[in-house]
C-alpha cells in the first residue's frame, strides 16, 4: 500500500491509474478572521421546519407512486447487448455503467476499502459529505444537531471522535486541537467530487498518527474534467437553500482550471421536547483548482478555498451562581481557508511528488472558546520499482502547527499561544510472489511529535489472488493516536455541583472539571484484519472484512486532588478529572458489502456492520465516569439501496437504513426510509427530488460528549435540486 499524510490514495499496489489520479486531489477549508464579542444572539435565521400537512400529503403520494413504479418494472430485464454487432459509432455513444467501476479501484488493496463514486453520491440523495458516508459499512454517522455530527470508523464515536483521519485532496482536515474533524466546515461542491475512498482500519503506516481506525480521502475531479459551467439550485424544508456555481477553462492547452462558489442555508430543528433548538446555519465558500501539464512527466496542481460559516446551537453551560447552569441559544462563527500546491513527476518506473499546503481555521464559539489554528505541511513521496518484484514507496514530511486561543470560564486550553512541530518518514515495500498472485506489503512510519517523541507504526499485509475474480487479504498493523492539544492543556468545567448538594455536600459550589495532562501518552492499537472480495461478474461484486482490534492506553479521566480557588468569584471547590491512559480492551466486527446489478437497469447495494466493543478500565483506574465507549456505538447497522433506471430518463432510488440503539446514551434504534427520483430530460439539465426519513420516524441519533449541545430530532425532510451544466452531450 501506499500513501502518506497527504494525497489520498488507496492502499496496496493498486491499479496504477488510481494511484495517479489519487495524487491529484485536495480541497477546502480554513481561514479568516472571526468576529469576537457578542454572545448569545437569538438567531434570526431560525426557521419553520418540516411540518406542513399538504406537503406531507404530496410527499406520501409521490412516494407511493414511486413504489408502484418500482414493483411494476421489476421484471423486464434485458440481455447483454451484442457489442460485436454494433458499429464503432454506436459503441462511442454507449454510456459506461458498471459495478466494476467501484471494485476495480479496490481490487488490489490489502485493506478494507470502500469507494463512493459520483453516481453513488447522486443516488444517495446526500446533501453534504457526512450524508454520503452513511452508505459505507463500518462507518458510523450520527447527526447531533443540524450542523454537528459524530462520525467514526469501527467504534469510539463522538462529536470529538479522534481516531479517524480525513483528507480532502491530500490535505489533512483533522484538527490538532482535539484530533477530530470540524465536519460542519468540510465541504466541496458534491458535483466536483470524483470519489470518496474510505479505508477502515489503521492506515498509519502511510498516513501517520491518527489514522487509527480509518482514513477518508475525499478526492475531487481534475480541473480538466470540470470544464463546463454548472449552476445548481437546491431547496427543501431542512436545507432551505443551496446554490452552487462553477465554471472551468483552459490555459492554452497546458493547463486547466475551475472555480466555484457555494452558499447554503439550513433551517433550525427541534429538540426532543419540541423546542426550537436554534441550530440553523449558513455558509458561504469559494475555491479553485488548476492543473498544469509541464511536460509529459511533470504536472502541477494548485488549489485553494475560503469559507465563512455561522452556526447556531442550544447550549447548556455550568455557572457558579444559582441555578448553577444556564441554557441559551449560542452562535458560532467558523471561517478559514487553504492553499495547496503539488508537483508530480512520473517516469517509466518511478514517480515523485512534492506537496505543500497552508491551512487556517478560525473558530469562535462565542460563549465557549475562540481558537485560531494555522497548519503548514510539506510532504515528499517517491515511488519506484526495484527489479520485477518490488515496488517501494518512501516519503518524508514536516508539519508546523500554530495555535492561539482565547479561553472562557467553561473551556480553556494552555498555553494560549503555542507552536508545534511534527516530522515523519515512512518506507514501504510491496513484494510480488508467484506471478503476482501473492503480494506482501510491509513497512513502517516513523514520526516525531512534541508531546510523546518518536512513534513508529509498522504494518504487514498479504494479498492473495484466489482466482481471476477473487482475492483475500490479511493484515496486522500498529497505529497510535498522539495527544491532542486539549489532552495536554485543557480545562473544561463540566458541571457545577451546588452548595450542600450530594455527593460533595460542600458549603461552596464544586466544579467537576476535566483537565489535560502532560503525562498523557499516545493511545495504541494493534489491529488484525482479514478480508475477501469477489467480482463474480461485471454485475456482481461482494466484499467482506473482519477485524479484531486490541487497544491499550486509551484515555481515562482520573480523579485528582480536590482544591479550592477564589477566582472567578465566588470561592469554589474543584474536583479535577485528569487525562490518563488507563483503559484498554478489544473490539471486533464484520462488514459485508454487496453490489449487484440484478438487471441491466436495476442495481442493488447492501451493507451490514457488526461491531462488538469490550473496552474496560484497567485495574489501576479510578475513573468515576460510568460510560465506557462500548455503549456509544451501534452494534448493528444495515444499509440497503435499490436504484432503478426508468424510461423517459428517470432514475429512482430507494434506501432503507437501520441503526441499533446506543445503550449508554439512551438513544433508541431507528430506521429510515430515504430516496427520490432524478430526471434528466435533455442533456445538461437534471432535476432531482429526494427525501430522507419518509416515514417521519422522528429520532435523535446521538447525544454529544463534553460540550452540552442540545441534540435535535431528525424528522422527514425533502430536497429539490435543479442542475444545469453547459455543453454536456
Amino acid at each position, binding site marked *: 500500500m501506499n500513501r502518506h499524510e497527504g494525497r489520498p490514495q488507496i492502499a496496496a499496489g493498486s*491499479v496504477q491509474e488510481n494511484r495517479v489520479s489519487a495524487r491529484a486531489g485536495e480541497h477546502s477549508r480554513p481561514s479568516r478572521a472571526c468576529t469576537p464579542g457578542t454572545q448569545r444572539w437569538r438567531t434570526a435565521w431560525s426557521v419553520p421546519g418540516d411540518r406542513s400537512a399538504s406537503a406531507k400529503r404530496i410527499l406520501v403520494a409521490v412516494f407511493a407512486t414511486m413504489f408502484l413504479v418500482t414493483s411494476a418494472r421489476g421484471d423486464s430485464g434485458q440481455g*447483454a447487448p451484442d457489442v*460485436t454487432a454494433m458499429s464503432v459509432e454506436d*459503441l462511442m455513444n454507449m*454510456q459506461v455503467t458498471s459495478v*466494476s467501476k467501484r471494485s476495480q479501484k479496490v481490487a488490489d488493496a490489502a485493506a478494507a476499502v470502500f469507494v463512493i463514486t459520483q453516481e453513488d453520491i447522486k443516488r444517495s440523495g446526500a446533501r453534504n459529505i457526512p450524508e454520503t458516508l452513511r452508505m459505507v459499512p463500518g462507518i458510523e454517522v450520527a447527526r447531533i444537531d443540524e450542523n454537528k455530527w459524530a462520525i467514526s470508523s469501527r467504534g469510539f464515536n463522538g462529536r470529538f471522535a479522534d481516531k479517524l483521519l480525513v483528507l480532502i485532496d491530500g490535505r489533512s482536515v483533522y484538527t490538532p486541537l482535539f484530533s477530530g474533524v470540524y465536519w460542519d466546515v468540510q465541504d466541496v461542491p458534491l458535483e466536483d467530487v470524483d470519489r470518496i475512498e474510505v479505508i477502515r482500519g489503521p492506515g498509519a503506516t502511510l498516513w501517520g498518527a491518527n489514522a487509527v481506525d480509518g482514513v477518508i480521502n475525499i478526492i475531487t475531479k481534475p480541473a480538466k474534467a470540470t470544464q463546463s459551467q454548472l449552476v445548481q439550485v437546491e431547496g427543501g424544508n431542512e436545507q432551505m437553500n443551496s446554490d452552487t456555481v462553477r465554471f472551468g477553462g483552459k490555459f492554452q492547452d497546458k493547463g486547466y482550471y475551475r472555480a466555484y462558489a457555494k452558499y447554503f442555508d439550513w433551517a433550525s430543528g427541534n429538540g426532543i421536547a419540541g423546542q426550537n433548538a436554534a441550530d440553523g446555519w449558513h455558509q458561504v465558500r469559494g475555491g479553485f483548482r488548476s492543473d498544469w501539464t509541464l511536460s509529459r512527466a511533470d504536472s502541477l496542481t494548485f488549489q485553494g478555498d475560503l469559507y465563512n460559516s455561522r452556526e447556531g446551537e442550544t447550549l447548556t453551560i455550568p455557572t457558579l451562581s444559582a441555578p448553577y447552569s444556564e441554557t441559551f441559544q449560542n452562535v458560532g462563527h467558523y471561517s478559514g481557508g487553504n492553499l495547496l500546491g503539488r508537483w508530480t513527476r512520473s517516469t517509466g518506473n518511478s514517480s515523485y511528488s512534492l506537496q505543500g499546503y497552508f491551512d487556517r481555521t478560525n473558530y469562535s464559539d462565542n460563549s465557549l472558546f475562540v481558537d485560531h489554528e494555522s497548519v503548514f505541511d510539506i510532504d515528499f513521496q517517491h515511488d519506484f520499482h526495484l527489479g520485477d518484484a518490488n515496488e517501494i514507496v518512501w516519503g518524508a514530511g514536516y508539519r508546523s502547527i500554530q495555535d492561539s486561543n482565547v479561553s472562557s470560564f467553561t473551556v480553556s486550553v494552555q498555553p494560549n499561544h503555542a507552536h508545534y512541530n511534527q516530522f515523519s518518514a515512512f518506507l514501504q515495500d510491496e513484494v510480488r510472489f508467484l506471478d503476482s498472485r501473492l503480494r506482501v506489503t510491509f513497512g513502517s512510519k516513523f514520526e516525531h511529535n512534541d508531546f510523546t517523541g518518536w512513534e513508529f507504526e509498522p504494518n504487514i499485509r498479504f494479498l492473495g489472488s484466489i482466482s481471476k475474480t477473487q482475492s483475500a487479504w490479511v493484515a496486522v498493523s500498529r497505529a497510535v493516536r498522539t495527544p491532542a492539544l486539549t489532552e495536554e492543556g485543557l480545562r473544561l468545567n463540566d458541571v457545577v455541583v451546588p452548595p450542600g448538594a450530594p455527593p460533595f455536600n460542600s458549603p461552596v459550589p464544586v466544579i467537576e472539571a476535566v483537565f489535560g495532562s502532560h503525562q498523557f501518552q499516545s493511545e495504541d492499537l494493534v489491529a488484525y484484519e482479514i478480508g475477501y472480495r469477489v467480482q*463474480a461478474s461485471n454485475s456482481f461484486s461482494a466484499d467482506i472484512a473482519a477485524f479484531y482490534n486490541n487497544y491499550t492506553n486509551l484515555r481515562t479521566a482520573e480523579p485528582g486532588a480536590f482544591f479550592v480557588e477564589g477566582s472567578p468569584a465566588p470561592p469554589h471547590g474543584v474536583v479535577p478529572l485528569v487525562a490518563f491512559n488507563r483503559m484498554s480492551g478489544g473490539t471486533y466486527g464484520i462488514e459485508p458489502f454487496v453490489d449487484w446489478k440484478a438487471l441491466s437497469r436495476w442495481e442493488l447495494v*447492501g451493507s451490514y456492520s457488526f461491531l462488538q466493543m469490550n473496552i474496560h478500565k484497567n485495574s489501576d483506574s479510578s475513573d468515576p465516569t460510568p460510560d465506557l465507549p462500548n455503549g456509544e456505538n451501534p452494534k448493528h447497522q444495515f444499509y440497503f439501496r435499490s436504484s432503478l433506471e426508468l424510461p423517459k430518463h428517470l432514475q429512482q432510488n430507494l434506501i432503507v437504513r437501520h441503526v441499533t440503539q446506543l445503550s449508554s446514551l439512551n438513544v433508541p434504534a431507528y430506521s429510515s426510509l430515504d430516496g427520490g427520483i432524478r430526471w434528466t430530460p435533455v442533456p445538461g439539465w437534471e432535476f432531482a427530488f429526494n427525501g430522507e426519513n419518509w416515514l417521519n*420516524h422522528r429520532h435523535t441519533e446521538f447525544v454529544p460528549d463534553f460540550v452540552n449541545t442540545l441534540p435535535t430530532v431528525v424528522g422527514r425532510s425533502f430536497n429539490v435540486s435543479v442542475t444545469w451544466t453547459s455543453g454536456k452531450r
Partner: protein
Amino acid sequence: MGFQIDKESLIQPVAQWARVLCVCFICAALAFPCPAQTADSPDSSEYLIKAGFIYNFANLMQWPANTFSSPDSPIVIAIVGTDTSGGILDEVLAGKKVAGRPFAVKHLKRGMDLKGCNIVFVSASETAHLDEILHLVKNLPILTIGETPSFAQRGGIINFIVVDDKVRFEVNVEAAKQADISISSRLLALAKIVPQTDGSKVQ
C-alpha cells in the same frame, strides 16, 4: 391515500421488514455469488464496450499480407497484465469471426514473448512498464491497444480513454505505419489522432 396512516404503527413493522430484508439479501448474495455470473452479464460495462471496439478494430484494419499462415488461422489477441475486464473479452469474442478468422485470446504476463500475436491489449496494470512492453513489439505487425494516458503518444497504436462516461479512442498513425498495419479511414475519422512523443523526442 396513505397520509393519515398512524405513524407509530407503521414504524415498527417497517423497521422489522427492513432488517429482515437486508439480512436476507446479504446472506443470499454472499451465499450465491456465482449465479450472478451466469444469470446475467448484461449492462454496458466499460469492458464490454471495449470488447466491442476491439472486435470492430479487427474488422477495420489490415495486417501485412503474409501475417496469417492460412485463410482460417485465428487472430491471436494477447492480454498483457491483469485482465481488468474479468474475462469479458474472452466471452464476447468466443465464436466470433472476422473475415473467416476466429479469435484466440491469450492471457500473458509481462516479459513473455508476443511475437505470434496479432493484437496486444496492454492492461492498466502495466502502466509502469509501457515502454518495456512497447519495445518488445516494436516494428512487428502487431496492433497494440492500451488504456492508460499517453499510451499512444509513447508508441502504442490505439489507446482507450473514457470521457464523460463514454469510451473514446486515440490513434497514433505513425506507430501504425511502423507496424505495417493499415487502418480504415472510417475508423480514423472517429479517432482522436495523437502524435508520437516518445523517448527520442521529449517535448
